[in-house]
Protein backbone atom coordinates (compact mmCIF):
# COMPACT_ATOMS: atom_id res chain seq x y z
CA UNK A 1 0.00 0.00 0.00
CA UNK A 2 2.94 2.27 0.66
CA UNK A 3 3.55 2.12 -3.07
CA UNK A 4 0.04 2.70 -4.30
CA UNK A 5 -0.90 6.03 -2.77
CA UNK A 6 2.09 8.05 -4.05
CA UNK A 7 1.53 6.45 -7.47
CA UNK A 8 -2.06 7.64 -7.55
CA UNK A 9 -1.08 11.19 -6.61
CA UNK A 10 1.56 11.35 -9.35
CA UNK A 11 0.30 12.87 -12.59
CA UNK A 12 2.60 10.86 -14.84
CA UNK A 13 1.66 7.61 -13.17
CA UNK A 14 -2.04 8.42 -13.44
CA UNK A 15 -1.76 9.10 -17.18
CA UNK A 16 0.17 5.87 -17.66
CA UNK A 17 -2.21 3.78 -15.58
CA UNK A 18 -5.24 5.23 -17.38
CA UNK A 19 -3.74 4.38 -20.78
CA UNK A 20 -2.87 0.88 -19.62
CA UNK A 21 -6.38 0.42 -18.24
CA UNK A 22 -7.83 1.46 -21.60
CA UNK A 23 -5.69 -1.07 -23.46
CA UNK A 24 -6.50 -3.80 -20.94
CA UNK A 25 -10.20 -3.18 -21.50
CA UNK A 26 -9.61 -3.23 -25.25
CA UNK A 27 -7.79 -6.56 -25.00
CA UNK A 28 -10.52 -8.08 -22.83
CA UNK A 29 -13.67 -6.84 -24.56
CA UNK A 30 -12.49 -5.64 -27.96
CA UNK A 31 -12.22 -8.96 -29.79
CA UNK A 32 -15.86 -9.72 -28.92
CA UNK A 33 -17.00 -6.49 -30.57
CA UNK A 34 -15.08 -6.62 -33.84
CA UNK A 35 -15.75 -10.26 -34.74
CA UNK A 36 -13.23 -12.43 -36.57
CA UNK A 37 -10.37 -10.17 -37.65
CA UNK A 38 -9.12 -12.67 -40.23
CA UNK A 39 -12.31 -12.41 -42.33
CA UNK A 40 -11.94 -10.95 -45.79
CA UNK A 41 -14.42 -8.10 -45.73
CA UNK A 42 -13.59 -5.77 -48.60
CA UNK A 43 -11.23 -5.05 -51.47
CA UNK A 44 -7.55 -5.06 -50.47
CA UNK A 45 -5.73 -1.84 -49.55
CA UNK A 46 -8.77 0.42 -49.24
CA UNK A 47 -8.01 3.71 -47.45
CA UNK A 48 -9.84 4.51 -44.18
CA UNK A 49 -13.55 5.09 -44.68
CA UNK A 50 -16.79 5.09 -42.69
CA UNK A 51 -17.22 1.36 -43.22
CA UNK A 52 -13.62 0.49 -42.40
CA UNK A 53 -12.24 3.08 -40.01
CA UNK A 54 -8.59 2.14 -40.49
CA UNK A 55 -8.92 0.86 -44.06
CA UNK A 56 -8.17 -2.69 -45.21
CA UNK A 57 -5.01 -4.81 -45.43
CA UNK A 58 -3.33 -6.18 -48.53
CA UNK A 59 -5.61 -9.19 -48.23
CA UNK A 60 -8.83 -7.28 -47.69
CA UNK A 61 -9.11 -7.65 -43.91
CA UNK A 62 -10.31 -4.84 -41.67
CA UNK A 63 -7.31 -3.05 -40.12
CA UNK A 64 -9.34 -1.71 -37.18
CA UNK A 65 -10.51 -5.21 -36.28
CA UNK A 66 -6.95 -6.52 -36.56
CA UNK A 67 -5.55 -3.76 -34.38
CA UNK A 68 -8.15 -4.41 -31.68
CA UNK A 69 -7.86 -8.20 -31.88
CA UNK A 70 -4.07 -7.97 -31.88
CA UNK A 71 -4.10 -6.25 -28.50
CA UNK A 72 -5.23 -9.42 -26.75
CA UNK A 73 -2.60 -11.69 -28.28
CA UNK A 74 0.27 -9.29 -27.74
CA UNK A 75 -0.61 -8.03 -24.27
CA UNK A 76 -1.36 -11.53 -22.95
CA UNK A 77 2.08 -12.76 -23.96
CA UNK A 78 3.68 -9.57 -22.66
CA UNK A 79 2.02 -9.91 -19.26
CA UNK A 80 2.76 -13.61 -18.92
CA UNK A 81 6.41 -13.16 -19.87
CA UNK A 82 6.70 -10.17 -17.53
CA UNK A 83 5.47 -12.24 -14.56
CA UNK A 84 7.66 -15.22 -15.42
CA UNK A 85 10.77 -13.12 -16.03
CA UNK A 86 10.42 -11.32 -12.70
CA UNK A 87 9.73 -14.57 -10.84
CA UNK A 88 12.74 -16.34 -12.35
CA UNK A 89 14.98 -13.28 -12.08
CA UNK A 90 13.97 -12.65 -8.47
CA UNK A 91 14.58 -16.29 -7.55
CA UNK A 92 18.08 -16.36 -9.05
CA UNK A 93 18.96 -12.87 -7.82
CA UNK A 94 17.72 -13.55 -4.28
CA UNK A 95 19.50 -16.87 -3.97
CA UNK A 96 22.74 -15.38 -5.31
CA UNK A 97 22.55 -12.29 -3.13
CA UNK A 98 21.44 -14.10 0.01
CA UNK A 99 23.85 -17.03 0.03
CA UNK A 100 26.81 -15.20 -1.52
CA UNK A 101 30.15 -16.97 -1.84
CA UNK A 102 30.44 -19.76 -4.37
CA UNK A 103 26.69 -19.81 -5.13
CA UNK A 104 26.88 -16.12 -5.98
CA UNK A 105 29.99 -16.58 -8.12
CA UNK A 106 28.41 -19.31 -10.23
CA UNK A 107 25.00 -17.63 -10.60
CA UNK A 108 26.64 -14.25 -11.19
CA UNK A 109 28.70 -15.67 -14.03
CA UNK A 110 25.60 -17.26 -15.54
CA UNK A 111 23.68 -13.98 -15.30
CA UNK A 112 26.49 -11.97 -16.86
CA UNK A 113 26.91 -14.41 -19.73
CA UNK A 114 23.18 -14.28 -20.49
CA UNK A 115 23.26 -10.48 -20.32
CA UNK A 116 26.01 -10.29 -22.90
CA UNK A 117 24.63 -12.77 -25.42
CA UNK A 118 22.52 -10.67 -27.82
CA UNK A 119 18.88 -11.56 -27.23
CA UNK A 120 17.38 -11.53 -30.69
CA UNK A 121 19.78 -13.96 -32.41
CA UNK A 122 19.57 -16.33 -29.43
CA UNK A 123 15.77 -16.09 -29.46
CA UNK A 124 15.73 -16.86 -33.18
CA UNK A 125 17.99 -19.89 -32.70
CA UNK A 126 15.64 -21.33 -30.07
CA UNK A 127 12.39 -20.36 -31.79
CA UNK A 128 13.49 -21.81 -35.11
CA UNK A 129 13.49 -25.32 -33.63
CA UNK A 130 10.12 -25.11 -31.91
CA UNK A 131 6.63 -25.08 -33.44
CA UNK A 132 5.62 -21.49 -34.24
CA UNK A 133 3.11 -19.95 -31.82
CA UNK A 134 2.60 -17.82 -28.73
CA UNK A 135 3.81 -20.53 -26.35
CA UNK A 136 7.13 -20.80 -28.16
CA UNK A 137 7.52 -17.02 -28.23
CA UNK A 138 6.77 -16.75 -24.52
CA UNK A 139 9.24 -19.52 -23.65
CA UNK A 140 11.96 -17.96 -25.79
CA UNK A 141 11.43 -14.52 -24.27
CA UNK A 142 11.66 -15.89 -20.74
CA UNK A 143 14.95 -17.64 -21.53
CA UNK A 144 16.46 -14.51 -23.10
CA UNK A 145 14.99 -11.96 -20.67
CA UNK A 146 15.44 -13.17 -17.08
CA UNK A 147 19.07 -12.12 -16.62
CA UNK A 148 18.47 -8.38 -16.40
CA UNK A 149 16.02 -8.74 -13.50
CA UNK A 150 18.30 -11.23 -11.78
CA UNK A 151 21.15 -8.74 -11.90
CA UNK A 152 19.12 -5.90 -10.42
CA UNK A 153 17.59 -8.08 -7.69
CA UNK A 154 20.96 -9.63 -6.83
CA UNK A 155 22.53 -6.23 -6.23
CA UNK A 156 19.64 -5.21 -3.96
CA UNK A 157 19.68 -8.54 -2.13
CA UNK A 158 23.42 -8.24 -1.49
CA UNK A 159 22.88 -4.84 0.11
CA UNK A 160 19.91 -6.02 2.17
CA UNK A 161 21.75 -9.14 3.32
CA UNK A 162 24.25 -6.95 5.15
CA UNK A 163 21.61 -4.91 6.95
CA UNK A 164 21.07 -5.34 10.67
CA UNK A 165 17.47 -6.49 10.61
CA UNK A 166 18.30 -9.38 8.29
CA UNK A 167 21.25 -10.34 10.48
CA UNK A 168 18.90 -10.24 13.47
CA UNK A 169 16.41 -12.50 11.72
CA UNK A 170 19.17 -14.99 10.89
CA UNK A 171 20.45 -15.01 14.45
CA UNK A 172 16.92 -15.46 15.84
CA UNK A 173 16.77 -18.80 14.06
CA UNK A 174 14.61 -17.93 11.09
CA UNK A 175 14.97 -20.39 8.19
CA UNK A 176 16.62 -19.28 4.94
CA UNK A 177 13.26 -19.31 3.21
CA UNK A 178 11.70 -17.32 6.03
CA UNK A 179 14.37 -14.63 5.91
CA UNK A 180 14.09 -14.32 2.14
CA UNK A 181 10.30 -14.30 1.95
CA UNK A 182 9.35 -12.51 5.18
CA UNK A 183 12.24 -10.11 5.72
CA UNK A 184 13.84 -9.31 2.37
CA UNK A 185 11.05 -9.65 -0.16
CA UNK A 186 8.74 -7.00 1.35
CA UNK A 187 11.60 -4.50 1.20
CA UNK A 188 12.07 -5.11 -2.50
CA UNK A 189 8.50 -4.47 -3.62
CA UNK A 190 9.25 -1.14 -5.38
CA UNK A 191 12.19 -2.74 -7.15
CA UNK A 192 10.12 -5.76 -8.15
CA UNK A 193 7.39 -3.46 -9.46
CA UNK A 194 9.76 -1.49 -11.67
CA UNK A 195 11.48 -4.71 -12.78
CA UNK A 196 8.10 -6.08 -13.76
CA UNK A 197 7.28 -3.02 -15.83
CA UNK A 198 10.66 -3.14 -17.54
CA UNK A 199 10.16 -6.86 -18.22
CA UNK A 200 6.75 -6.29 -19.80
CA UNK A 201 8.19 -3.52 -21.98
CA UNK A 202 10.97 -5.81 -23.07
CA UNK A 203 8.57 -8.70 -23.68
CA UNK A 204 6.20 -6.70 -25.88
CA UNK A 205 9.04 -5.22 -27.93
CA UNK A 206 10.83 -8.51 -28.41
CA UNK A 207 7.63 -10.41 -29.14
CA UNK A 208 6.65 -7.96 -31.84
CA UNK A 209 10.18 -8.19 -33.25
CA UNK A 210 10.19 -11.98 -33.39
CA UNK A 211 6.78 -12.08 -35.04
CA UNK A 212 7.91 -9.42 -37.49
CA UNK A 213 10.76 -11.77 -38.41
CA UNK A 214 8.16 -14.40 -39.29
CA UNK A 215 8.69 -16.61 -36.24
CA UNK A 216 5.17 -16.22 -34.89
CA UNK A 217 2.06 -18.18 -35.78
CA UNK A 218 1.02 -16.32 -38.93
CA UNK A 219 -2.58 -17.58 -38.71
CA UNK A 220 -3.03 -15.78 -35.42
CA UNK A 221 -3.75 -12.06 -35.21
CA UNK A 222 -1.31 -10.08 -33.05
CA UNK A 223 0.44 -6.74 -33.36
CA UNK A 224 3.63 -8.45 -34.51
CA UNK A 225 1.98 -10.48 -37.25
CA UNK A 226 0.04 -7.40 -38.36
CA UNK A 227 3.35 -5.65 -39.00
CA UNK A 228 4.77 -8.78 -40.63
CA UNK A 229 1.95 -8.80 -43.17
CA UNK A 230 2.14 -5.03 -43.65
CA UNK A 231 5.79 -5.29 -44.63
CA UNK A 232 5.45 -8.45 -46.70
CA UNK A 233 2.45 -7.47 -48.77
CA UNK A 234 2.76 -4.73 -51.33
CA UNK A 235 1.25 -2.33 -48.79
CA UNK A 236 4.28 -0.10 -48.27
CA UNK A 237 5.26 0.69 -51.87
CA UNK A 238 1.63 1.33 -52.81
CA UNK A 239 1.37 4.10 -50.21
CA UNK A 240 -0.98 2.28 -47.83
CA UNK A 241 0.21 3.88 -44.59
CA UNK A 242 -2.90 2.71 -42.74
CA UNK A 243 -1.71 -0.91 -42.78
CA UNK A 244 1.15 -0.28 -40.36
CA UNK A 245 0.46 3.01 -38.57
CA UNK A 246 -2.40 1.95 -36.21
CA UNK A 247 -0.56 -1.10 -34.88
CA UNK A 248 2.69 0.81 -34.40
CA UNK A 249 0.95 3.65 -32.57
CA UNK A 250 -0.82 1.14 -30.32
CA UNK A 251 2.49 -0.55 -29.43
CA UNK A 252 4.12 2.81 -28.76
CA UNK A 253 1.25 3.98 -26.56
CA UNK A 254 1.49 0.87 -24.41
CA UNK A 255 5.28 1.24 -24.18
CA UNK A 256 4.96 4.93 -23.37
CA UNK A 257 2.38 4.28 -20.67
CA UNK A 258 4.62 1.67 -19.07
CA UNK A 259 7.58 4.07 -19.22
CA UNK A 260 5.49 6.79 -17.54
CA UNK A 261 4.59 4.51 -14.64
CA UNK A 262 8.20 3.37 -14.35
CA UNK A 263 9.48 6.96 -14.30
CA UNK A 264 6.98 7.80 -11.60
CA UNK A 265 8.13 4.82 -9.54
CA UNK A 266 11.72 6.03 -9.97
CA UNK A 267 10.83 9.51 -8.80
CA UNK A 268 8.99 8.18 -5.76
CA UNK A 269 11.87 5.90 -4.86
CA UNK A 270 14.60 8.46 -5.54
CA UNK A 271 13.52 12.00 -4.59
CA UNK A 272 16.94 13.32 -5.67
CA UNK A 273 15.82 12.98 -9.30
CA UNK A 274 13.38 15.79 -8.77
CA UNK A 275 14.24 17.49 -5.46
CA UNK A 276 12.14 20.56 -6.16
CA UNK A 277 9.00 18.53 -6.62
CA UNK A 278 9.79 16.30 -3.65
CA UNK A 279 10.20 19.43 -1.53
CA UNK A 280 6.95 20.91 -2.77
CA UNK A 281 5.13 17.69 -2.05
CA UNK A 282 6.58 17.49 1.45
CA UNK A 283 5.67 21.10 2.27
CA UNK A 284 2.35 21.13 0.47
CA UNK A 285 3.29 24.29 -1.43
CA UNK A 286 2.38 24.90 -5.03
CA UNK A 287 5.57 26.55 -6.27
CA UNK A 288 9.05 27.39 -5.18
CA UNK A 289 10.01 31.05 -4.71
CA UNK A 290 13.46 31.59 -6.16
CA UNK A 291 15.85 33.81 -4.23
CA UNK A 292 14.03 33.23 -0.95
CA UNK A 293 16.10 32.27 2.08
CA UNK A 294 16.83 28.58 2.46
CA UNK A 295 13.61 27.04 3.71
CA UNK A 296 13.75 24.82 6.77
CA UNK A 297 11.44 21.87 6.96
CA UNK A 298 9.84 21.11 10.31
CA UNK A 299 7.79 18.03 10.85
CA UNK A 300 4.65 18.51 12.89
CA UNK A 301 4.36 16.16 15.79
CA UNK A 302 0.94 17.36 16.83
Amino acid at each position, binding site marked *: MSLLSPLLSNRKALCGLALLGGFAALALVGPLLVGDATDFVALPLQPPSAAHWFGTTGQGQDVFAQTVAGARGTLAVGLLVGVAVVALGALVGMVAGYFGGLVDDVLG*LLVNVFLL*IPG*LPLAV*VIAAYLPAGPVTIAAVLIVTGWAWTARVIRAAALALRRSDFVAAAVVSGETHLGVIVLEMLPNMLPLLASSFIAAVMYAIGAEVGLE*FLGLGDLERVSWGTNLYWASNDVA*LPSGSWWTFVPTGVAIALVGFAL*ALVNNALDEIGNPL*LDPARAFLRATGRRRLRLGAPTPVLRRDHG
Partner: protein
Amino acid sequence: MRFLLRRLGFYLTAAWASVTLSFFLPRLMPGDPATAMFARFRGRLAPEAIAAMRSAFGFSDAPLLQQYARYLAHAARGDLGISISYYPASVGSVIGQALIWTLFLSGVAVLISFLLGTVLGVLAAWKRGGWLDGALPPVLTLLGAFPYFWLAMAALFVFGIGLGWAPLRQAYDDRLAPAPSAAFVASVFQHAVLPAATIVVATVGGWMLSMRATMINVLAQDHVLYAHARGLSPWRIMFQYAARNALLPNVAGFGIALGFVLSGSLLTEIVFSYPGQGYLLFRAVKSLDYPLIQGLFLTTTVAVLGANWLVDLVAVWLDPRARS
Protein backbone atom coordinates in the same frame (compact mmCIF):
# COMPACT_ATOMS: atom_id res chain seq x y z
CA MET B 1 46.15 -4.83 -17.01
CA ARG B 2 44.96 -7.55 -14.66
CA PHE B 3 41.45 -6.14 -14.95
CA LEU B 4 41.54 -6.37 -18.74
CA LEU B 5 42.89 -9.92 -18.67
CA ARG B 6 40.20 -10.97 -16.23
CA ARG B 7 37.55 -9.46 -18.47
CA LEU B 8 39.07 -11.22 -21.47
CA GLY B 9 38.79 -14.50 -19.58
CA PHE B 10 35.15 -13.73 -18.90
CA TYR B 11 34.44 -13.01 -22.56
CA LEU B 12 36.10 -16.26 -23.57
CA THR B 13 33.84 -18.03 -21.06
CA ALA B 14 30.82 -16.29 -22.56
CA ALA B 15 31.90 -17.27 -26.08
CA TRP B 16 32.35 -20.87 -24.98
CA ALA B 17 28.90 -20.77 -23.35
CA SER B 18 27.24 -19.57 -26.53
CA VAL B 19 28.99 -22.20 -28.66
CA THR B 20 27.85 -24.82 -26.14
CA LEU B 21 24.30 -23.45 -26.27
CA SER B 22 24.22 -23.64 -30.02
CA PHE B 23 25.53 -27.22 -29.88
CA PHE B 24 23.06 -28.51 -27.29
CA LEU B 25 19.93 -26.58 -28.28
CA PRO B 26 19.13 -28.65 -31.39
CA ARG B 27 19.78 -31.80 -29.37
CA LEU B 28 17.59 -30.76 -26.43
CA MET B 29 14.53 -30.02 -28.53
CA PRO B 30 11.53 -32.31 -27.97
CA GLY B 31 11.48 -35.51 -30.00
CA ASP B 32 14.37 -36.24 -32.27
CA PRO B 33 15.31 -32.85 -33.70
CA ALA B 34 17.56 -34.24 -36.40
CA THR B 35 14.92 -36.39 -38.06
CA ALA B 36 12.20 -33.81 -37.47
CA MET B 37 14.34 -31.24 -39.17
CA PHE B 38 15.19 -33.46 -42.08
CA ALA B 39 11.54 -34.44 -42.46
CA ARG B 40 10.65 -30.81 -43.05
CA PHE B 41 12.97 -30.76 -46.01
CA ARG B 42 11.91 -34.05 -47.56
CA GLY B 43 11.70 -33.69 -51.32
CA ARG B 44 12.96 -30.13 -51.25
CA LEU B 45 16.60 -30.82 -50.62
CA ALA B 46 19.29 -32.70 -52.47
CA PRO B 47 20.68 -35.72 -50.58
CA GLU B 48 24.15 -34.22 -50.58
CA ALA B 49 22.77 -31.06 -48.97
CA ILE B 50 21.21 -33.15 -46.21
CA ALA B 51 24.50 -34.96 -45.74
CA ALA B 52 26.30 -31.62 -45.58
CA MET B 53 23.78 -30.39 -43.04
CA ARG B 54 24.20 -33.46 -40.88
CA SER B 55 27.94 -33.09 -40.82
CA ALA B 56 27.70 -29.35 -40.34
CA PHE B 57 25.72 -29.97 -37.16
CA GLY B 58 28.10 -32.68 -36.13
CA PHE B 59 25.16 -35.12 -36.08
CA SER B 60 26.69 -38.52 -36.31
CA ASP B 61 26.57 -41.81 -34.48
CA ALA B 62 29.63 -40.90 -32.43
CA PRO B 63 29.18 -40.43 -28.64
CA LEU B 64 27.81 -37.03 -27.64
CA LEU B 65 31.03 -35.93 -25.98
CA GLN B 66 33.04 -36.70 -29.09
CA GLN B 67 30.56 -34.75 -31.26
CA TYR B 68 30.82 -31.84 -28.84
CA ALA B 69 34.62 -31.84 -28.98
CA ARG B 70 34.51 -31.81 -32.77
CA TYR B 71 31.97 -28.98 -32.77
CA LEU B 72 34.12 -26.89 -30.43
CA ALA B 73 37.21 -27.49 -32.55
CA HIS B 74 35.36 -26.46 -35.71
CA ALA B 75 33.93 -23.34 -34.07
CA ALA B 76 37.35 -22.33 -32.75
CA ARG B 77 38.71 -22.50 -36.29
CA GLY B 78 35.80 -20.39 -37.52
CA ASP B 79 34.35 -23.31 -39.48
CA LEU B 80 30.58 -22.89 -39.11
CA GLY B 81 29.49 -25.50 -41.65
CA ILE B 82 27.67 -25.28 -44.96
CA SER B 83 24.69 -23.03 -45.61
CA ILE B 84 21.53 -24.73 -46.90
CA SER B 85 19.95 -21.84 -48.76
CA TYR B 86 23.27 -20.76 -50.27
CA TYR B 87 24.50 -24.34 -50.78
CA PRO B 88 27.36 -25.09 -51.43
CA ALA B 89 28.75 -21.85 -49.95
CA SER B 90 30.09 -22.12 -46.41
CA VAL B 91 28.30 -20.25 -43.63
CA GLY B 92 31.52 -18.35 -42.91
CA SER B 93 31.74 -16.92 -46.40
CA VAL B 94 28.04 -15.98 -46.49
CA ILE B 95 28.27 -14.22 -43.15
CA GLY B 96 31.64 -12.51 -43.74
CA GLN B 97 30.26 -9.82 -46.05
CA ALA B 98 27.10 -9.28 -44.05
CA LEU B 99 29.05 -8.82 -40.83
CA ILE B 100 31.02 -5.93 -42.30
CA TRP B 101 27.83 -4.08 -43.28
CA THR B 102 26.27 -4.66 -39.86
CA LEU B 103 29.38 -3.52 -38.01
CA PHE B 104 29.48 -0.41 -40.18
CA LEU B 105 25.80 0.51 -39.86
CA SER B 106 25.22 -0.41 -36.21
CA GLY B 107 28.66 0.76 -35.10
CA VAL B 108 28.28 4.22 -36.56
CA ALA B 109 24.66 4.57 -35.45
CA VAL B 110 25.34 3.41 -31.89
CA LEU B 111 28.35 5.70 -31.51
CA ILE B 112 26.45 8.74 -32.78
CA SER B 113 23.48 7.91 -30.59
CA PHE B 114 25.62 7.37 -27.47
CA LEU B 115 27.61 10.58 -27.92
CA LEU B 116 24.55 12.66 -28.77
CA GLY B 117 22.49 11.18 -25.93
CA THR B 118 25.31 11.69 -23.42
CA VAL B 119 25.80 15.35 -24.34
CA LEU B 120 22.04 15.97 -24.25
CA GLY B 121 21.84 14.24 -20.87
CA VAL B 122 24.67 16.39 -19.48
CA LEU B 123 23.03 19.58 -20.71
CA ALA B 124 19.58 18.57 -19.45
CA ALA B 125 20.95 17.76 -15.98
CA TRP B 126 22.94 21.01 -15.90
CA LYS B 127 19.93 23.22 -16.68
CA ARG B 128 17.35 21.46 -14.55
CA GLY B 129 13.86 22.49 -15.54
CA GLY B 130 15.07 24.22 -18.71
CA TRP B 131 13.42 23.63 -22.08
CA LEU B 132 15.83 20.81 -22.92
CA ASP B 133 15.09 19.08 -19.65
CA GLY B 134 11.36 19.59 -19.91
CA ALA B 135 10.63 18.86 -23.56
CA LEU B 136 13.11 16.27 -24.74
CA PRO B 137 12.70 13.35 -22.29
CA PRO B 138 8.99 12.76 -22.93
CA VAL B 139 9.40 13.12 -26.71
CA LEU B 140 12.36 10.76 -26.79
CA THR B 141 10.63 8.31 -24.46
CA LEU B 142 7.65 8.23 -26.80
CA LEU B 143 9.91 7.71 -29.83
CA GLY B 144 11.81 5.00 -27.95
CA ALA B 145 8.52 3.20 -27.31
CA PHE B 146 8.05 2.49 -31.02
CA PRO B 147 9.71 -0.71 -32.21
CA TYR B 148 12.88 0.22 -34.14
CA PHE B 149 11.68 -1.50 -37.24
CA TRP B 150 8.39 0.37 -37.12
CA LEU B 151 10.25 3.69 -37.08
CA ALA B 152 12.26 2.31 -39.98
CA MET B 153 9.06 1.49 -41.87
CA ALA B 154 7.70 4.97 -41.20
CA ALA B 155 10.98 6.62 -42.26
CA LEU B 156 11.14 4.50 -45.38
CA PHE B 157 7.55 5.36 -46.16
CA VAL B 158 7.89 9.11 -45.66
CA PHE B 159 11.40 9.86 -46.88
CA GLY B 160 11.94 7.00 -49.31
CA ILE B 161 8.60 6.29 -50.95
CA GLY B 162 6.79 9.56 -50.28
CA LEU B 163 9.44 12.23 -50.76
CA GLY B 164 11.97 10.19 -52.71
CA TRP B 165 14.88 11.66 -50.77
CA ALA B 166 16.54 8.37 -49.91
CA PRO B 167 17.08 5.05 -51.67
CA LEU B 168 14.68 2.27 -50.68
CA ARG B 169 16.91 -0.77 -50.35
CA GLN B 170 20.40 -2.27 -50.38
CA ALA B 171 23.62 -0.77 -49.04
CA TYR B 172 24.81 0.83 -52.28
CA ASP B 173 23.66 1.39 -55.84
CA ASP B 174 23.95 -1.98 -57.60
CA ARG B 175 25.09 -0.29 -60.80
CA LEU B 176 28.31 0.59 -58.98
CA ALA B 177 31.10 -1.87 -58.35
CA PRO B 178 32.39 -1.95 -54.76
CA ALA B 179 35.58 0.06 -55.16
CA PRO B 180 37.25 2.82 -53.15
CA SER B 181 35.87 5.46 -55.51
CA ALA B 182 34.13 8.68 -54.52
CA ALA B 183 30.90 7.61 -56.24
CA PHE B 184 30.80 4.33 -54.32
CA VAL B 185 31.50 5.96 -50.96
CA ALA B 186 28.82 8.57 -51.63
CA SER B 187 26.34 5.84 -52.54
CA VAL B 188 27.13 3.86 -49.37
CA PHE B 189 26.64 7.01 -47.32
CA GLN B 190 23.34 7.80 -49.04
CA HIS B 191 22.02 4.32 -48.38
CA ALA B 192 23.13 4.32 -44.73
CA VAL B 193 21.66 7.68 -43.66
CA LEU B 194 18.04 6.60 -43.24
CA PRO B 195 18.63 3.27 -41.44
CA ALA B 196 21.27 4.85 -39.18
CA ALA B 197 19.01 7.81 -38.43
CA THR B 198 16.16 5.55 -37.32
CA ILE B 199 18.47 3.63 -34.98
CA VAL B 200 19.75 6.90 -33.53
CA VAL B 201 16.25 8.29 -33.03
CA ALA B 202 15.07 5.09 -31.36
CA THR B 203 17.99 4.79 -28.96
CA VAL B 204 19.15 8.32 -28.14
CA GLY B 205 16.46 8.76 -25.46
CA GLY B 206 17.74 5.84 -23.40
CA TRP B 207 21.30 7.16 -23.30
CA MET B 208 20.08 10.66 -22.52
CA LEU B 209 17.86 9.61 -19.62
CA SER B 210 20.48 7.43 -17.96
CA MET B 211 23.17 10.09 -18.36
CA ARG B 212 20.80 12.69 -16.94
CA ALA B 213 20.06 10.53 -13.91
CA THR B 214 23.72 9.80 -13.04
CA MET B 215 24.69 13.39 -13.81
CA ILE B 216 22.09 14.68 -11.36
CA ASN B 217 23.56 12.46 -8.66
CA VAL B 218 27.10 13.61 -9.37
CA LEU B 219 26.11 17.29 -9.48
CA ALA B 220 24.82 17.00 -5.92
CA GLN B 221 28.22 15.84 -4.65
CA ASP B 222 30.65 17.91 -2.63
CA HIS B 223 33.49 18.08 -5.13
CA VAL B 224 31.20 19.82 -7.60
CA LEU B 225 30.10 22.30 -4.94
CA TYR B 226 33.76 22.90 -4.15
CA ALA B 227 34.53 23.50 -7.81
CA HIS B 228 31.74 26.09 -7.90
CA ALA B 229 33.16 27.72 -4.78
CA ARG B 230 36.56 27.97 -6.40
CA GLY B 231 34.94 29.94 -9.20
CA LEU B 232 35.85 27.57 -12.00
CA SER B 233 34.17 28.15 -15.33
CA PRO B 234 30.80 26.38 -15.73
CA TRP B 235 32.02 24.44 -18.80
CA ARG B 236 34.99 23.09 -16.90
CA ILE B 237 32.81 22.01 -13.98
CA MET B 238 30.19 20.54 -16.27
CA PHE B 239 32.52 18.36 -18.30
CA GLN B 240 35.68 17.78 -16.26
CA TYR B 241 34.19 17.58 -12.79
CA ALA B 242 30.71 16.22 -13.30
CA ALA B 243 30.33 14.59 -16.71
CA ARG B 244 33.55 12.64 -16.53
CA ASN B 245 32.49 10.97 -13.30
CA ALA B 246 28.92 10.47 -14.45
CA LEU B 247 30.19 8.83 -17.63
CA LEU B 248 31.64 5.80 -15.87
CA PRO B 249 28.43 3.93 -14.97
CA ASN B 250 27.07 4.88 -18.37
CA VAL B 251 30.02 3.38 -20.20
CA ALA B 252 29.55 0.18 -18.22
CA GLY B 253 25.87 0.17 -19.18
CA PHE B 254 26.84 0.82 -22.78
CA GLY B 255 28.49 -2.58 -23.05
CA ILE B 256 25.42 -4.42 -21.82
CA ALA B 257 23.02 -2.33 -23.88
CA LEU B 258 24.94 -3.15 -27.05
CA GLY B 259 23.22 -6.51 -27.36
CA PHE B 260 19.77 -4.88 -27.14
CA VAL B 261 20.64 -2.17 -29.62
CA LEU B 262 22.12 -4.66 -32.04
CA SER B 263 18.97 -6.78 -31.87
CA GLY B 264 16.93 -3.72 -32.81
CA SER B 265 19.22 -2.69 -35.62
CA LEU B 266 19.07 -6.20 -37.07
CA LEU B 267 15.32 -5.70 -37.48
CA THR B 268 15.92 -2.27 -39.02
CA GLU B 269 18.14 -3.88 -41.65
CA ILE B 270 15.25 -6.11 -42.69
CA VAL B 271 13.03 -3.12 -43.43
CA PHE B 272 15.69 -1.50 -45.60
CA SER B 273 16.84 -4.80 -47.14
CA TYR B 274 20.25 -3.73 -45.87
CA PRO B 275 22.59 -6.66 -46.65
CA GLY B 276 23.79 -7.16 -43.06
CA GLN B 277 23.36 -9.88 -40.44
CA GLY B 278 19.72 -8.99 -39.76
CA TYR B 279 18.59 -9.28 -43.35
CA LEU B 280 20.50 -12.54 -43.65
CA LEU B 281 18.82 -13.78 -40.47
CA PHE B 282 15.42 -12.94 -41.95
CA ARG B 283 16.19 -14.94 -45.09
CA ALA B 284 17.68 -17.80 -43.08
CA VAL B 285 14.48 -18.01 -40.98
CA LYS B 286 12.34 -18.01 -44.13
CA SER B 287 14.30 -20.87 -45.69
CA LEU B 288 14.91 -22.72 -42.38
CA ASP B 289 18.65 -22.54 -42.95
CA TYR B 290 19.64 -23.82 -39.51
CA PRO B 291 23.44 -23.77 -39.95
CA LEU B 292 23.20 -20.16 -41.12
CA ILE B 293 20.95 -19.17 -38.20
CA GLN B 294 23.42 -20.67 -35.75
CA GLY B 295 26.37 -19.10 -37.52
CA LEU B 296 24.67 -15.71 -37.34
CA PHE B 297 24.02 -16.20 -33.63
CA LEU B 298 27.65 -17.08 -32.95
CA THR B 299 29.19 -14.28 -35.02
CA THR B 300 26.83 -11.67 -33.59
CA THR B 301 27.68 -12.85 -30.09
CA VAL B 302 31.41 -12.71 -30.75
CA ALA B 303 31.00 -9.20 -32.21
CA VAL B 304 29.18 -8.05 -29.08
CA LEU B 305 31.81 -9.63 -26.84
CA GLY B 306 34.58 -7.91 -28.79
CA ALA B 307 32.80 -4.57 -28.57
CA ASN B 308 32.44 -5.08 -24.83
CA TRP B 309 36.16 -5.56 -24.49
CA LEU B 310 36.70 -2.26 -26.30
CA VAL B 311 34.26 -0.67 -23.86
CA ASP B 312 36.38 -2.08 -21.02
CA LEU B 313 39.43 -0.40 -22.54
CA VAL B 314 37.57 2.92 -22.51
CA ALA B 315 36.44 2.35 -18.93
CA VAL B 316 40.04 1.72 -17.84
CA TRP B 317 41.11 4.89 -19.60
CA LEU B 318 38.37 6.87 -17.81
CA ASP B 319 38.82 5.33 -14.39
CA PRO B 320 42.28 5.40 -12.83
CA ARG B 321 41.15 2.96 -10.13
CA ALA B 322 40.83 0.17 -12.70
CA ARG B 323 44.35 0.78 -13.99
CA SER B 324 46.30 -0.13 -10.90
